[in-house]
């Protein structure tokens, strides 16, 4: 078997780049913006950038699991808004931490609901969560009565004001969750089976893997992640906007795919997702620093997305087999 492995090591570096091309891309964008704007490479800005990216990042952690599983979740933005509203709205009646826990449970519950419907009905998750995207937003408005909710006690907003160097609590939570779930993906049975299910459902099913359970679990995790992001957002803003997180689901999917995770499932990692999230955050922040008009920003984002996709495709064809 060593015969087979020796030449592999030689191409290992190339292989690594192919599988992690997003980090090369990220390094490139960072270089460009450092050159273009004197404010980009400041500790303060980088700290901000990480915090800003972390919200999409946390959503992307959950989304990655769902996508690896071969599914998709369009409802994360709405779930985020609901958790955000609950975390703030329930504080007066049940206290801060119970409210936070309730918000988490709500996110988990909605994720579970999505997962159950997908797994039990056999419908395409695109359809199920498209419905949920509309409906959960309705729940947000039912709960908030369309007004923005505000915390009574602004001490709540200081919970998230914990810093480790330039890293805010939000950024730390993002990196922590990404690391934790990456570990889960590589080292636990659920993690590996998530890949197996996304890669070849028939094989996974025939091997006795409970496909439905994994999907349900991953949707639940995804909902929970949306809740975590929602709670952190409520701490950041001190307010729950009923429209919070609109079209964030699209940015989240974009970040995940930008990272290189395959939309059809089975291939990808949180490491890639972190790369995708950071690239997205750097691009948005950098373009803002360069004072690009909004329409240029939109066009550049569209262009970059295509570029990343084309790069991915080019590397994929080179890799040959798949």
């Amino acid at each position: 078997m060593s015969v087979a492995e020796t030449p592999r090591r030689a191409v290992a570096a190339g292989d690594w780049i192919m599988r992690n091309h997003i980090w090369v891309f990220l390094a490139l964008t960072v270089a460009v913006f450092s050159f273009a704007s004197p404010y980009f490479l400041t500790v303060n800005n980088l700290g901000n950038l990480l915090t800003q990216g972390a919200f999409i990042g946390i959503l992307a952690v959950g989304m990655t699991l769902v996508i690896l599983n071969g599914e998709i979740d369009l409802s994360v933005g709405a779930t985020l808004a609901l958790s955000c509203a609950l975390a703030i709205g329930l504080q007066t009646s049940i206290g801060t931490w119970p409210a936070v826990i309730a918000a988490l449970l709500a996110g988990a519950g909605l994720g579970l609901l999505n997962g159950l419907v997908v797994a039990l009905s056999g419908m395409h998750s695109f359809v199920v969560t498209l419905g949920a995207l509309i409906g959960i937003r309705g729940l947000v408005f039912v709960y908030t009565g369309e007004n923005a909710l505000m915390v009574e006690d602004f001490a709540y907003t200081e919970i998230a004001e914990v810093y480790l160097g330039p890293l805010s609590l939000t950024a730390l939570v993002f990196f922590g969750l990404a690391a934790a779930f990456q570990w889960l993906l590589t080292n636990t049975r659920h993690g590996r089976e998530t890949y197996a299910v996304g890669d070849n459902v028939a094989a996974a099913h025939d091997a006795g893997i409970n496909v439905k359970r994994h999907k349900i679990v991953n949707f639940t995790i995804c909902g929970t992640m949306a809740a975590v992001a929602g709670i952190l957002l409520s701490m950041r803003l001190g307010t729950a906007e009923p429209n919070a997180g609109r079209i964030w689901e699209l940015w989240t999917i974009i970040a995940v795919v930008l990272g290189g995770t395959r939309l059809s499932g089975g291939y990808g990692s949180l490491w890639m997702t972190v790369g995708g999230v950071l690239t997205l955050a750097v691009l948005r922040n950098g373009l803002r620093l360069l004072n690009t008009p909004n329409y240029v920003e939109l066009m550049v984002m569209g262009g970059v997305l295509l570029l990343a996709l084309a790069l991915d495709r080019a590397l994929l064809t080179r890799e040959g087999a798949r």
Partner: protein
Amino acid sequence: MSLHFAALLRRHGLLVAFALFLALVAVQAEAFLTPSNVLDVLRQVSIIGMMALGVTFVVVAGRLDLSVGSMLTLLTVIVVDRTNAFGPGLAILVTLLAGLAAGAWNGLLVGVFRLNALIVTLAMLSFLQGLTLAYSGGSNVNVADGTTWFAAFGRGSLWGIPAPVVIFALSAAVLAFVLKRTRFGRAIFAVGGNETAATYSGIDARLVVFAAYCLSGLTTAIAAIIMGSRVMGAQNTIGQGYELTVLAGVILGGTSLLGGSGSIGRTVLGVAMLGFIQNGLLLMGYPYYVQWLVTWGIIILAVWIDLGAKRGRILA
């Protein structure tokens, strides 16, 4: 035999459920099933419906188009602005060409270069939004001359039937024929059902997908003409979120996102269902968020029922 019969029954189940819903609303709101309201609803869904026609081709070919919403915005801005500049005739031509071009770009990337449709059209969504802002400078545009014949597409009527409904119905009839009865339609089904097999049969899948996107751009352009004429102006957000409504209509009709199955008739039904649901709930006076919740429920229920009917059609 019995399998087909059961499927047929369950498929009718969806229609029965829809009819029940119509009856239920009609009891609650007597205005619901009056001819004038029905025509109103049809006119309101004709824009979404028009777009859904093209998107149906894309979805049957096994792809997705999320860019139609922002494409609608841009094209509406173009048709209104150009009407002011060149007059309606040329403006309509320019709009149709622009729609075709936008669709062709999607088709080029997805069909010819075989990039992922979801991402390509998402990128297009973002790009077209930017382009719209760049084009309009952010301001609203209005048709300056209120008496132009351009108004006919959105506001006119033919034998008492609103013009948008006439346009939509005609387009639906033509495209239903194209999808069911022509070579192109057959190729769409083949490519969506099994692209490799289609290629081995001498069908150029790249061209077929390309053409489907072009068609989607074209129907969106027609929708934009109706929209511009109905509003006699355009706003930079006018098509925002339409892509999801369009997709919801297509899916509700039972066209599978996996490609290879579906029909224009079902899309028309799906879009009409969406329109009547919204109109009915509005007539019953439910707040908008209840409408959203009900839409959630109905999408899931309808697709579920439909899926049940199709189950076991193809061996796994």
